[in-house]
């Protein structure tokens, strides 16, 4: 208990002595947390939206002839050779006709003269909803075109491709801003701690002479790093939340954002971001101590 009392008092002294630098560091950390979590939040929401979009996503393979049960089994095998899929559904000519009629609703009269087999039979392939399988949807479509008896393959081509291209771009931005966060957190904290150490050379020297242990001298600096990480990330996340709320209020009802519901981070991710920046800042202060605090 006395140990922690001393440590906290020492940390308080450090902070008081260099509070301007400490404050700037804290701001830098929170700014990088803000930038990182901003892109990450968009990324997560896009993924989410992607999930919803792909609920309706299916590849339709129109067939020349209606396959018999044996043929169906073979086709099934062929399709799963390319990739695992969520579902393969065979639509017979009659089923296609019935569906179409249903879609026409009141206008189904126009079909009265048509034979019930005028629409082609087809296979509906619902791909797995993983980003990987979605990103190669084009290849999948090309593959499906080559299976025997296929006439034509359809899916929401252009749109889906662009959407996943966008998500991939976004993931790169997230990685970059993550790297920025790592750099600022570790380097800024490292240099602040270095400043503190240099500013207190005399005192640290004396502490060693009167028998201060390693822990006594070092723990306050580690604590400083932890504090920087904690307060910095909390500040960054809070400003992001305020920004999020503001955006939600001002753009609710306006077309684009209504397509999908934009949500904030779940608690798990918030905690992870806070812990991550604490770890980074502590690592920063640790490297500075290793370099400049010879004991």
């Amino acid at each position, binding site marked *: 208990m006395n140990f922690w009392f*001393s440590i906290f008092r020492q940390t308080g002294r450090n902070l008081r002595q260099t509070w301007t630098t400490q404050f700037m560091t804290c701001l830098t950390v929170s700014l990088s947390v803000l930038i990182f979590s901003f892109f990450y939040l968009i990324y997560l929401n896009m993924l989410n939206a992607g999930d919803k979009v792909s609920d309706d996503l299916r590849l339709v393979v129109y067939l020349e002839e209606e396959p018999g049960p044996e043929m169906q089994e073979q086709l099934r095998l062929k399709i799963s050779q390319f990739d695992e899929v969520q579902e393969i559904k065979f639509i017979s000519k009659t089923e296609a006709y019935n569906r179409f009629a249903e879609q026409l609703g009141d206008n189904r009269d126009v079909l009265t003269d048509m034979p019930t087999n005028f629409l082609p039979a087809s296979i509906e392939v619902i791909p797995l909803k993983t980003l990987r399988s979605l990103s190669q949807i084009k290849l999948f479509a090309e593959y499906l075109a080559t299976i025997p008896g296929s006439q034509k393959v359809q899916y929401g081509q252009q749109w889906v491709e662009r959407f996943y291209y966008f998500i991939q771009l976004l993931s790169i931005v997230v990685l970059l801003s993550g790297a920025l966060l790592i750099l600022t957190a570790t380097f800024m904290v490292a240099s602040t701690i270095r400043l503190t150490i240099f500013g207190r050379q005399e005192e640290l020297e*004396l*502490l060693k002479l*009167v*028998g201060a242990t390693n822990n*006594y001298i070092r723990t306050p600096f580690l604590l400083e790093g932890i504090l920087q990480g904690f307060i910095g990330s909390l500040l960054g996340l809070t400003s992001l939340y305020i920004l999020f709320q503001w955006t939600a209020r001002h753009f609710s009802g306006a077309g684009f954002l209504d397509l999908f519901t934009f949500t904030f981070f779940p608690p798990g991710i918030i905690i992870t971001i806070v812990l991550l920046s604490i770890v980074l800042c502590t690592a920063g202060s640790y490297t500075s101590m290793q370099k400049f605090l010879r004991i």
Partner: protein
Amino acid sequence: MTEATTSSRTAMIEMIKVCKKFPPNVMALDDISVSIANGEMFFLIGRSGAGKTTLLKLLCNMERPTNGLIEVAGMNINQVTGNKLAKLRQKVGVAYQDFRLLTDRTVAENIAISMEVSYKKPQIIRNRVKSLLSQLQLEDKHDILTGDLSRGEQQRVALARAVANSPTLILVDEPTGNLDATSTRQVMELLIRCNNSGATIVIATHDEALYQHSTHRIMKLHNGKLESLTRGDGRGWPSVAGARDSAGATDGSGDEI
């Protein structure tokens, strides 16, 4: 506890053929061998530049000897590192010739440092600081920054910090250089009190009055060499007649050298 029970027999400080050479070619200490008993009060004298401060610095591991062996409390201090060294230093109080006070901290904070590092309770620290300041008649300086004090006041604060944590070994470098007779007496009384409660004390000084009439051993250095090892004439220091004669009672090594 073993240290305490065997204390009257063992030496607190053992120096064997110690040399300290500073670059380029200064022999600050040359072949010094001396043994200082547990509980002894020991004086170190010599002209300016004789090597007194250097010897004290070797004893508290601020400098390493070029040659020779130094043992403090049975440990070879040049092989002690890390937390063991820290623990040892907590038991060695040093009043430096250049004080080494933190000039941007108050008197009380400066004295408290040596107790804080061994995690003494804040209440105990406060009381000890008050008691030391009153013994040195510095009560009114409690909250003054040490940078604003006079040299003589700084000197006494440095001494208070050295003895605050009740160390078993106290090294004092020139404790009375800037003091008047009354303050000198107070400083000596404080040191003798520490000595009476068991601490070994090594005092480097120019002030003959401190040791002349005591019964303590006096080591005189000259250009880094041991010139003589004598005793005071034993007539006693006028104001501190109650001082216990610890050297003669505990240690025979004084006669050997």
